[in-house]
């Protein structure tokens, strides 16, 4: 089986193609104009035929394909089952569980609106909120970590405001801010600010005092100790805080868009749900999943780069 394992995804693609062609579509599903699902299967079939062949010349690609073969085959099997269950036999109500054909159709025909308008709008909101929340979180975290006065005044505030889910502020924010965009930025900033502040200050509090002592005997003054010793040493903690903030900012973004902000991908999903266009809802979810996956991967890349000195220590 070892040598043939790499062909499993091709087998899964062929099986899906055979079922798609052999079984008649259920009359309960509205017919789609183009067989996008078949195209997608043919495309993946071609890829999983060509890749192992290319792998003959690139041993590392072949190794990777072999390791991932089961996963790729299972993914194709999953869409195959999905297609048979919906498009072929209509086992679930077609209005809530549309055929893969129609979801792909929305992704293709609505691409410019979904990505060009909604995703861009969401991205603007997310980045504006994330950037301000991150800066504010680092600033308060460092202040609380290094200054007794700041800690005296800000710590109770952090404990009081921090645990409130940012989305609970939506009713207030909608009336307090002139535009929903500004309100959204504030909410997302809040959701990044809390974990960043908390982990930055506790990261700094956890830095071994000996590092500060050594740096002072090397001639470092207060400023240098903060920016060249305290903050770098607290970086592993800070990244955990920023990671939590990032995840929480995704939740806040979606909720804010569904409840108040009148555009963006979250709003799109909610709007399409109200119109009972579930194919569009799923297309929106797919766009969100891919974008957030991309952002999280980017986050881990940055972390691995900044924390390269910790290699072999970090385990998350």
């Amino acid at each position, binding site marked *: 089986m070892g040598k043939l394992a790499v062909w499993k995804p091709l087998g899964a693609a062929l099986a899906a193609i055979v079922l798609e062609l052999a079984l008649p579509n259920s009359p309960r599903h509205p017919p789609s104009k183009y067989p996008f699902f078949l195209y997608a299967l043919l495309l993946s079939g071609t890829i999983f035929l060509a890749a192992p062949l290319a792998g003959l010349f690139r041993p590392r690609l072949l190794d990777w394909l072999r390791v991932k073969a089961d996963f790729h085959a299972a993914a194709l099997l999953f869409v195959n089952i999905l297609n048979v269950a919906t498009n072929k036999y209509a086992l679930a109500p077609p209005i809530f569980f549309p055929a893969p054909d129609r979801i792909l159709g929305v992704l293709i025909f609505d691409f410019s609106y979904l990505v060009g308008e909604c995703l861009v709008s969401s991205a603007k909101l997310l980045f504006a909120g994330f950037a301000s929340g991150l800066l504010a979180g680092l600033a308060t975290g460092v202040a609380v970590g290094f200054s007794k006065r700041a800690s005296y005044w800000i710590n109770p505030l952090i404990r009081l405001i921090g645990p409130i889910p940012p989305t609970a502020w939506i009713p207030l924010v909608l009336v307090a801010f002139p535009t929903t965009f500004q309100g959204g930025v504030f909410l997302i900033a809040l959701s990044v600010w809390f974990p960043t502040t908390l982990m930055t200050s506790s990261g700094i509090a956890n830095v071994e005092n000996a590092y500060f002592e050594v740096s002072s005997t090397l*001639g470092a*003054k207060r400023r240098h100790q903060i920016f060249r010793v305290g903050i770098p040493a607290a970086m592993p903690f800070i990244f955990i805080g920023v990671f939590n903030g990032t995840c929480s900012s995704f939740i806040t973004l979606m909720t804010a868009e569904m409840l108040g902000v009148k555009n963006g991908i979250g709003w799109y999903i909610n709007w399409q749900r109200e119109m009972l266009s579930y194919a569009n809802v799923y297309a929106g979810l797919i766009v969100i999943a891919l974008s957030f996956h991309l952002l999280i991967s980017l986050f881990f890349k940055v972390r691995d780069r900044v924390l390269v000195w910790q290699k072999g220590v970090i385990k998350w």
Partner: protein
Amino acid sequence: MVAAAERKAAPANERPGRIRVENVMKSFPQNDGSTVVALGGVDLEVEAGEFVSLIGPSGCGKSTLLRLIAGLNPADSGRLLLDGREIRGPDSERGLVFQNPLLFPWLSIRDNVAFGLRSRGIYKERQEDVDEFLKLAGLEKFALSYPHQLSGGMAQRASLARALVNRPRVLLLDEPLGALDAFTRMNMQDEIVRVWRERGTTMIMVTHDVDEALYLADRVVVMSPGPARIETVIGSGLARPRARSHPDFLHLRARILRILHFGGQVKEPSYQI
């Protein structure tokens, strides 16, 4: 106190790095409200360019004295002077190396060594110094490595280079070799002697190891605990380079061990094996 008389007779020394400790007291408050006296009126003079070892049992205040000279803790009373100026707080003119190398793990070895120059804002003018001291420590090839990639001995050499690149007047060593294995330790002792002879930096070293104290120092200061005071100062007068098996060395070693009550019971004065 022959050594003291000799020093007074010597002509005034122009080299920087002269330490004076005058009747210094230091106590630490405990959790139960009482205080523990760590140093009870200590006097010590270290000449510029001299190598002095502080030795004594745990808790005899050696490290406290070193921290006071480094400026990390203030004295309760008495005065500490470097070249006639009172010591107030830590400064790059007094380098300190601990038993734990305490390299900054987020900086490469080169950046660790450059840390002092950067924090004093003189890195640009003196960057060649960084390479010079990396070479002195035999770490040119590890300039771009991170601390976790170094062995214990290499890390401690990097730590020494980091303190020395500031060209301090005094280098304070708090059991710098305590965590190393015996062979690395003896190698490092030779390296410290080499650096000391080349640079002429005043060195004050805390150690638990009688051999180490004798092998390195011009004078061995034996301290006793509770509250700490200076028991005896032994001017070693041993010729350099030193041999650990020379009869003079063994004689002084036996003397120090006796002062510390580790002399043992000698029943047969002659060789038995």
